[in-house]
């Protein structure tokens, strides 16, 4: 059906009340996402806040080529990728397993209490999570108090550079494993019971049904979560790392996001840090679209059709 101008005009007159309601929100998105995006032009400048966009010198691709030979950027890239791989390997499968475990509880009330309890940490701030970990695992913390009382050696986790990355993942698991389970739990609930029954009658035990019925039914949602995770390949938890960076030093803890903050906002290399952040954003977007393409190849919907 061709949309004639008069048709569009009629629809506009009909819907203008609705559009007016949407206006404040739309303005927010335009200003803080699209106009802000344009601010990335300072990546091509030697930006000096006092001189502004128009007064600062243009340096072409200079900031970008400088980034490629900057050892601090290399350290940040390496740390970021190491943390991402640890998160992917150690964190990502856990919510799926947890959902299967919670779903297998035959007492409804126990299951719902467990769910609430496991969701809660997601809503605590990173400052609180880091404080809790410090209080429990720190050198004068609860665990060392118990170990000391039992005359076992002390553990040194907080402030130890080589334990830093596993510690980050442990904190992430404590905070978000329960919450990330919610989507997988919904997927398990939607599995058709008749499939299970048919498999059971054919003699499949619990584990076989898990492998041949439950997990295949969850495949689309697992893949979707994996694609979304790919977009985070270079975003590995800014506040969490910022809060603990000083304790272990930048060599162990600098990631791309903290580099952008410290180099740009703190040290005043505005244009240079923006260039690093822009490269990060472009790569992250490319990763999502790449993973999405891969999902299509595997015969799944992915996020965009």
């Amino acid at each position, binding site marked *: 059906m061709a949309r004639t101008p008069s048709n569009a005009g009629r629809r506009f007159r009909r819907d203008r009340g609705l559009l007016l*309601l949407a206006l404040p929100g739309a303005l927010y998105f335009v200003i803080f996402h699209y106009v802000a995006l344009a601010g990335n032009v300072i990546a091509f400048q030697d930006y000096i806040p006092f001189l502004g966009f128009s007064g600062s010198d243009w340096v072409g691709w200079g900031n970008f080529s400088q980034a490629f030979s900057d050892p601090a950027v290399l350290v940040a890239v390496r740390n970021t990728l190491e943390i991402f791989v640890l998160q992917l390997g150690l964190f990502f499968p856990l919510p799926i397993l947890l959902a299967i475990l919670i779903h297998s509880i035959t007492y409804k009330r126990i299951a719902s209490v467990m769910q609430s309890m496991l969701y809660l940490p997601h809503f605590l701030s990173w400052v609180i999570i880091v404080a809790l970990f410090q209080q429990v695992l720190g050198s004068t913390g609860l665990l060392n108090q118990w170990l000391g009382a039992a005359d076992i050696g002390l553990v040194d986790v907080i402030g130890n550079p080589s334990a830093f990355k596993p510690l980050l993942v442990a904190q992430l698991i404590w905070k978000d494993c329960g919450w990330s389970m919610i989507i997988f739990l919904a997927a398990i609930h939607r599995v058709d019971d008749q499939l299970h029954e048919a498999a059971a009658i054919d003699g499949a035990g619990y584990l076989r049904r898990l492998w041949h019925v439950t997990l295949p039914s969850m495949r689309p949602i697992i893949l979707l979560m994996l694609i979304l995770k790919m977009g985070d390949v270079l975003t590995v938890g800014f506040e969490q790392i910022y809060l603990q960076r000083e304790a272990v030093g930048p060599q162990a803890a600098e990631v791309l996001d903290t580099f952008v903050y410290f180099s740009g906002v703190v040290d005043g290399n505005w244009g240079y840090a923006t260039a690093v952040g822009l490269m990060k954003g472009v790569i992250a977007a490319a990763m999502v679209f790449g993973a999405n393409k891969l999902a299509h190849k595997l015969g799944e919907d992915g996020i965009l059709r």
Partner: protein
Amino acid sequence: MSAFTTVRTMLGHQPRASWESRPHAAVVATKVIILTALAAAVVIPILTVVATSLTSEQELIDSGGWVLWPSDPTLDAYTKVLRGGVVTHATLISLGVTVVGTAVSLAVTILMAYGMSRPGMFGGRPLTILVLLTMFFSPGMIPTYLVVQELGLLDTLAALIVPVLVSAFNLIVLRGFFQGIPAELFEAARMDGAGELGILFRIALPLSAGAVAVVGLFYAVTYWNMFFNAILYLNDSGKWPLQVILRQYVLEGSPLAESTFDTVDATSSRSIQMAVVVLAMIPILVIFPFVQRHFSKGVLTGAIKS
């Protein structure tokens, strides 16, 4: 045997389907152990912080620094931090930002979600794309900072609210809910001459109360937990919210400003530190149980599909 059955019923036991085999006792035991360990991993850190905040200095010294249960609970630590110093001030700022921010965010999000919910409406598709695309790219920290600066928001509390005013995710959740309401209800109300705002308040909102509660919780948590934006946008330490003070005082161990305490208390005692941690957790621990029952009702999972 009947007492056993009663307990099972109380715990909401769901009998297995006839084709399901009973798991081995060892499997059940392992499951109980894992679930207990998970519950302990969440509860013990929170419990020890709350207990320690309620314990007197002397008992803490005697017990080696930590307690799981105070033998003689005291609110001393709370009366000290809430006597009107830095912590009190920061708590009030956090409360104010959370209340105002949640109200404004909810209002703008509800209006926009409703304003783009009519199927086949003029501009509906471009608006949806405008919102969805923002979920795949972020302008970056410095470009956003420059916008905040250009708008003159640096060093104002509005800098904690305006840059995160609407979450695309929350918006899509609510829009999905409004779209799930039968269109005939809206058409009937329009026939009766109701304006869009009237329809929103009399039909759309009452039918989506659970989703609005969840989205409200998400916004409230964002504002209450706000930490880094305060560091980034606020130089004036007099405007810092509770999370920033918490970090300074508990994570970095710096003493609170002298005006807060008399000299005897100037050392950062652990029960006082833990009282600040508890203050920063309380609103979440209080609101969470009331809202979390809506989580399971498809509020979130419905959104993922769209």
